[in-house]
């Protein structure tokens, strides 16, 4: 309860709830995205931002007015917006002669810019240009990344992580199988990234798993990567830190070997082997006469045996 740590306590329950929602937690909220237009945004950029807003509803904010800032030079304005609207993802669109149809995608850590990647839009087909039925807002999309370029360079790897972060949506424990409606497919080929959105059609197949047919639905973009502003390694490491409470708990006494066999360890108390429950052979049972003579012999010997046992 960090709002009780403030010098000025919140006076209403509503204010308290507002502050509680924004404070750092172990399990975080879904990241909100803010979509901002630059001072010289053109129709293409505006439509792109509108389409992304439609995809990311209700976890996004679309700013209607133009904001004259340059994210790569001065990040204070973006950080101020992020603090006011509690958004940790942003998309900034602008257009000029040197960088036509420019889109800057980025994320924040602790209200400071963590990563920013500038993408240029070469071709854009909007949601409204493709005339078919769309899926309801708020559905969780499936994400597919194709192409080996996404692993080769650090820039592409961060771009992949950033895009997953951006489009992922809330993390859910269960998902309704009929509710898997659309998929975002990113292909990296020849320095270009093809972003396509398809609607899923489940067809009958011979078995339980359906056959998939795709129908182009939503915004499709051809992107090229321009500038990047990536966080330093230690800041990135800090932002990825897992709290101890969320680390996967190790089960004790279970180990795996290289071939995948699981070994368990059982700890037993010390057993008295003379009193073990074994199979009884009636023929070997001691007769009463033999028992008596044994006792007379064994008494002095018993003391010796005990000593050995104790060592």
């Amino acid at each position, binding site marked *: 309860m960090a709002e009780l740590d403030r010098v000025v306590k919140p006076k209403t329950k509503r204010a308290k709830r507002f502050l509680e929602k924004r404070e750092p937690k172990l399990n975080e909220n879904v990241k909100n995205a803010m979509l901002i237009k630059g001072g010289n945004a053109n129709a293409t950029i505006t439509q792109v931002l509108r389409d992304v807003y439609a995809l990311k509803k209700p976890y996004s904010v679309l700013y209607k007015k133009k904001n004259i800032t340059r994210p790569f030079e001065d990040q204070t304005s973006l950080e101020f917006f992020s603090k006011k609207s509690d958004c940790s993802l942003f998309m900034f669109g602008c257009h000029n002669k040197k960088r036509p149809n420019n889109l800057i995608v980025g994320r924040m850590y602790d209200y400071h810019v963590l990563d920013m990647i500038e993408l240029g839009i070469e071709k854009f087909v909007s949601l409204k240009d493709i005339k078919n039925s769309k899926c309801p807002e708020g559905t969780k999309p499936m994400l597919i990344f194709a192409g080996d370029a996404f692993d080769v360079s650090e820039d592409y790897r961060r771009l992949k992580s950033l895009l997953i972060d951006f489009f992922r949506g809330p993390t859910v424990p269960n*998902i309704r199988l009929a509710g898997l409606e659309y998929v975002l497919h990113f292909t990296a080929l020849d320095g270009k990234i093809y972003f396509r959105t398809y609607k899923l059609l489940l067809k009958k197949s011979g078995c339980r798993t359906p056959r*998939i047919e795709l129908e182009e639905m939503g915004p499709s973009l051809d992107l090229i990567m321009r500038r990047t502003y990536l966080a330093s390694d230690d800041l990135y490491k800090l932002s990825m830190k897992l709290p101890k409470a969320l680390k996967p708990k190790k089960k004790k006494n279970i180990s795996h070997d290289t071939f995948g066999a699981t070994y368990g360890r059982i700890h037993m108390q010390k057993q008295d082997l003379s009193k073990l429950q074994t199979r009884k052979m009636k023929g070997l049972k001691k007769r009463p006469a033999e028992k008596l003579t044994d006792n007379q012999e064994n008494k002095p010997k018993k003391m010796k045996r005990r000593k050995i046992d104790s060592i």
Partner: protein
Amino acid sequence: MEARSAEELLARAERAEAEKLRLITVHKDLELEFDLGNLLATDRNPPTGLRQRSGPGLEAQLRGLARDNVQLLINQLWQLPSERVEEAVVARLPEPSLRLPREKPLPKPRPLTRWQQFAQLKGIRPRKKTSLVWDEASKQWRRRWGYQRARDDTKEWLIEVPGGADPDEDQFAKRLQAKKERVARNELNRLRNIARAHKVQLPSQGGMHPTGYQSRAELGKAMQVAKVSTASVGRFQERLPKEKPPRGPGKKRQFQPNIGDFAAEKKSQLELIRVMNSKKPRMDVTRATNKQMREEDREEAAKKRKVAKGRGGKRKGRPLGPGGKGKGGPPGPGGKRKGRPPGLGGKKGQRQGGKRRK
């Protein structure tokens, strides 16, 4: 013969199975990597199949690639354990395996408050209280505190004067005062707990709260702090006849012990001799740059003054012309000082002034 028919049966069964799965099998050179918690699939195969570079052919090929990938992902998802929740089939997703950076830093653990420490020490556990209490006066269940509470002190119209108290004292006012004091004390304790949590040193915690048993040093410190806490920061405070002026928080000199680290001492002395012997003078970069910047500032200021004087003298009756606008124009980027615009403007102004005079 039986063996052959058995073989045939098996072969037929296999073919039937393959037929069934034909529609949903996809062949890939490299297996995809799945992160089902995020509904994510990564295809590492190089997209060499995409031969077209533009146009509808490319779209069709992209769509084919996407279809294959999505089919594989769906196959994986359909293999998850599923259950039925209110007439919908729901699959249980595993934890997302891809780690993404957090948006806010980890919450810091807060130190225990004074009461919590005491309770832990004594083993006191919070007792759950009922939310409603029986109120005798109104014969109904009322809440324990808040609006229309059970035993409301403030609503009493009669307070008996207690045995040893002054009969002229206002008991109602006394009650109000007691409540104000309690509220103030609670607020003070809350702020002290916050200060302790943030490890902020409060002046009262530095030994300057009146206990009656303060040492000479503590009293001295309290007196010094009181002296400086005026509007003029202690400049015009009177002093007693034989009182010495306060020493002030000057820089404390640090002395190395006489017999300390011999190796370090030897090293520092050798370094000193080396510096004294060297022909090149040592340069302190920060001081040099500061000096340079100050000189530049001075030159600029001097130039500005000259231009202002020159312009003021030559253009007495004229309103602010284009030269004035040039000076009042864009002040230039941020903190970097570039002496160019005033200089240029100044020169132009002087020349124009000269022409006009003619």
